[in-house]
């Protein structure tokens, strides 16, 4: 027994390398040219924007009273966000913000679903820069709404000094609320998306790379166990599809909630 173990350690000397952060760094597609900033995630995000644009343009072009199959699909995405998020969370005057919310939901969904679509198989938003831009968009929108409603000082006064609290609470509460609105909210929006996609992608990589490694290993036990790992990868792929759409929903829901809070008079 010990001799086979020894032989194993000698033959499989590089060992299994677990996936890590290095798997999220892509080389430039056109190196040594002015376009060396173009990488796979950048192209994927551009492709996602095109897909979203074409999807909604084609769906809205005909505008038939009795929708066909495709138009029904487009309209059900739109209705889900409009009624499920915008109307229920924002309340009156929600119509202005429906286009932003629908676009953000569709863009994030498509970008996330790239994580399980063959040939692309990388969730673009696992790179922190992409969700950060989306979070900053939401941040600018809710700050803009609040400042337009109550004025610059009025808005920050309503955040930092909500009425009806004992006076000695305010020195504690005011900085916390200010930091939360200015820093924590956009940062947590972006971080939630990135960390979810990062974790999901690493999990898939672990199961597929591990399964491949076990299958190509010389040990018969590992060969027999490899199908379980690969089956786990298939199961996790469908779980990831669920998580990816759920995260797009949560991002949209939180954006709508922040907008609703900036719109309301009371804190």
């Amino acid at each position, binding site marked *: 027994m010990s001799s086979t173990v020894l032989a194993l350690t000698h033959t499989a000397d590089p060992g299994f390398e677990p996936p*890590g*952060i290095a798997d999220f760094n892509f080389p430039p597609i056109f190196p040594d040219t002015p376009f060396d900033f173009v990488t796979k995630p950048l192209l994927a995000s551009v492709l996602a924007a095109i897909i979203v644009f074409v999807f909604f343009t084609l769906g809205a072009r005909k505008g038939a009273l009795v929708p066909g199959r495709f138009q029904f699909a487009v309209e059900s995405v739109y209705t889900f966000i409009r009624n*499920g*998020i915008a109307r*229920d*969370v924002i309340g009156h005057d929600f119509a202005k913000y429906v286009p932003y919310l629908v676009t953000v939901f569709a863009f994030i969904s498509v970008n996330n679903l790239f994580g399980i679509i063959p040939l692309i198989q990388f969730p673009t938003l696992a790179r922190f820069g992409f969700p950060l831009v989306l979070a900053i968009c939401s941040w600018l929108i809710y700050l803009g709404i609040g400042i337009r409603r109550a004025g610059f000082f009025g808005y920050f006064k309503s955040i930092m000094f909500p009425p009806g609290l004992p006076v000695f609470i305010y020195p504690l509460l005011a900085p916390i609320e200010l930091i939360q609105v200015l820093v924590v909210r956009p940062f*947590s929006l972006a*971080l*939630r998306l990135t*960390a*979810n996609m*990062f*974790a999901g992608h690493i999990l898939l990589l672990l199961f597929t790379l591990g399964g491949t490694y076990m299958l190509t290993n010389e040990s018969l036990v590992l060969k027999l166990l490899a199908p379980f790992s690969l089956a786990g990868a298939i199961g996790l792929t469908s779980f990831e599809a669920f998580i990816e759409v*759920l995260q797009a*929903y*949560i991002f949209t*829901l*939180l954006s709508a*909630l922040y907008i609703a809070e900036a719109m309301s008079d009371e804190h």
Partner: protein
Amino acid sequence: MDKISLAGPLVYAIAAIGPGIGIGLIFAAYVSGVARQPEANNILRPIAFLGFALVEILALIGLVFAFL
């Protein structure tokens, strides 16, 4: 496996306990709420997922720190 490569996963395992319990409590309350009053589902769903998102971010911050 040296000590350094194990530290991150172990710390994250501890960090995931609290959010795990929290998410369990949130969905338990959501499920029992819908079971008692099925027509309240549409009102409860955004609230449940809001709580889920706020708890989940704690686990995800732990995950990020595990990789730092």
